[in-house]
């Protein structure tokens, strides 16, 4: 089967989303929270667009994995976390970092390989970490963060901290052995972990429907006697509601939850992607469910936001990214003489 499949967004592949009460989900978020959520979604979108444009203009090298279209998943889940909770992110991790409160200037500086970047130019896009902010890092290895999350959960438990660890991964990552081992250990030890699968329907070119035999990644939670929750990943209030429940469960000592956010990656997997495995129609159908436009629309409809405030938020995001770009460009590069410093901690 080399023909691209069609993942219609409307049916969510026949699965039922957890939230059947969209109004209640939105009502559960206070005004400050909805503004913060919208701002962060815009920050992510504009960050990704700026990263892409910088790449196209040859300002950065390497590769990048953009999360355009997946903003509600990153922001909605992390809304449920406290500042000292932990996250572990993925190769497609810019959104998680911003959602957790990361500084877009230090992120973009990292993308530009600068000494002022989060990783002082050593890590780049795939390794951005904001350890002080609770972001224990993006990861270049698919499913690489999952076993690490188990250790973070153990650490929280042994230190008797009221924290939670939220770990992100894609649909493709759920076929790695690491996924299985991690979910099993988290479950038998009732660790305070929230597993968030961002199912964007493809692992690179591999259709999730060809890569696994079950309809939902969340169905796999049963193998660990863990709650598995499917949520419309482009619906911010719904994602936030699912995450709140899972975080409360984890913090309360009742153990981990697997949340599956059904969403879609609008851009190619990385720069080398020619989109041979999917149709333009499929991409367009998902484009029409843009999570930012949708959330903003709901807020306007519900009278929770007016057009002026919306414009102000978008402009604030744009200004932050513009400043970040300036910062990134003008920051100094690392000193090559320092090449082998920071290999070992002292």
């Amino acid at each position, binding site marked *: 089967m080399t023909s691209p499949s069609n993942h219609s967004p409307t049916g969510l592949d026949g699965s039922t989303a957890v939230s059947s009460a969209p109004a209640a989900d939105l009502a559960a978020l206070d005004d400050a929270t909805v503004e913060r959520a919208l701002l962060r979604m815009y920050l992510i979108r504009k960050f990704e667009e700026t990263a892409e444009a910088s790449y196209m203009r040859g300002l950065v090298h390497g590769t990048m994995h953009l999360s355009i279209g997946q903003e509600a998943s990153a922001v909605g889940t992390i809304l449920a976390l406290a500042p000292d909770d932990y996250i572990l992110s993925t190769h497609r991790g810019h959104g998680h970092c911003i959602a957790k409160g990361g500084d877009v200037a230090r992120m973009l500086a990292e993308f530009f390989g600068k000494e002022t970047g989060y990783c002082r130019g050593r890590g780049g896009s795939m*390794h951005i970490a904001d350890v002080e902010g609770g972001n224990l890092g993006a990861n270049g290895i698919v499913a690489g963060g999952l076993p690490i999350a188990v250790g973070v959960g153990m650490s929280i438990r042994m230190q008797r901290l009221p924290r939670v660890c939220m770990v992100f991964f894609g649909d493709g990552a759920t076929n790695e*052995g690491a996924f299985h081992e991690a979910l099993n250990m988290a479950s038998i030890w009732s660790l305070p972990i929230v597993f968030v699968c961002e199912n964007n329907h493809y692992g690179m070119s591999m259709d999730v429907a060809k890569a696994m035999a079950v309809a939902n990644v969340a169905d796999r939670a049963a193998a660990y006697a863990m709650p598995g929750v499917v949520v419309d990943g482009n619906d911010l209030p719904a994602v936030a509601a699912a995450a709140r429940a899972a975080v409360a469960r984890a913090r309360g000592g009742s153990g981990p939850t697997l949340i599956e956010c059904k969403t879609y990656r609008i851009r190619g997997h990385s720069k080398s992607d020619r989109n041979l495995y999917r149709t333009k129609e499929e991409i367009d159908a998902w484009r029409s469910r843009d999570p930012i436009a949708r959330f903003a629309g709901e807020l306007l409809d519900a009278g929770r936001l007016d057009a002026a405030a919306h414009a102000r938020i978008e402009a604030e995001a744009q200004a932050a990214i513009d400043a970040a770009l300036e910062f990134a460009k003008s920051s100094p590069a690392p000193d090559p003489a320092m*090449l082998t410093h920071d290999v070992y901690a002292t």
Partner: protein
Amino acid sequence: MPSSTSAPSTATVATSAGPTGSAAPGSGAAAAAAPGTDTALRELSYAEAIREALAQAMSADPRVFLFGEDVGVYGGAFGVSGDLVHRFGTERVLDTPISELGIAGAAVGAALTGMRPVLELQFSDFVTLAMEQLVNQAAKIHFMFGGKANVPMVVRLPAGSGTGAAAQHSQSLEAWFAHVPGLKVVQPSTPHDAKGLLLAAIDDPNPVLVFEHKLLYKTKGHVPADAYRVPIGKAAVRRDGRDLTIVAGSVMVPRSLAAAERLAADGIDVEVIDLRSLRPLDSATIEASVSRTHRLLIVHEGVKTMGIGAEISARIAEGSAFDLLDAPIARLGGADTPIPYNPVLEKAAVPQEDDIVRAATRLVREGRA
């Protein structure tokens, strides 16, 4: 038989088969060869040469198949498999889930029961997930079963730095596998060898790891149309010289050849040996060269400490060439660091043409690199 020169890393490298590198005539049908092509002029890229080897092997032998992540309609992360799925179908060019341990084991099982699997690992760094199957199973089954089963499988591993992919996507781990009896390890540096070594690997009744270099995929060179083999375990002299032997592998071969031209202009006559195979290691070719030049510089991208240069240095020093050395053997290898993201640091982390020129000059002029 000095080969023509080459510019730094991405330039065309002319293929000089060299004394030990004469290609055996291939047996398989040259399915992908353009009929009537003048083979003397026939140029392919390294990636195209690999694809041609795969196509010829699959056409000639129904037991051969290719599988791995995104090798199908995507055409491979580095475009190596390209259109093969359209030519051979989805069963023989099979996309897999992201399960490196599982697919490595699947290669073992298929090889054990009569197939000739070729597995692509998307980046060689991900071999860290497949070590169990490669090292404990593939490498040992023939021996553990008293010689009563074979595991004729090939693993292709795109390796190396220089693409800005940072520490988890830029490693050169080939030296590990040279430490594992039961495995064979090759590392082609030219389109010619990329094809010939892969065909030899597919023929081989043992597990063979083929380390390809990401920076070489687009380099072009002469590739005959027939399904020739390049023998595993034979190094190739790429350039003759009197003053110094440089042994290099993979992308360090074009860099060393470019350095050799600059050194020639400075009056230093360098012999360049392309290692090609790490296991078995062709010490004889190196030793013969060193007995003539009396000086040896080894260049590789993998971390210097415990890189393949350590073994080469130790073997030459403990062999008959010991008394003939006019200077201590020198090694250039990767710095003692993960590969950094920043492009300037990234380049500084592995040997570049300038480093080779500098080390070679010192070794010849000052007797020490």
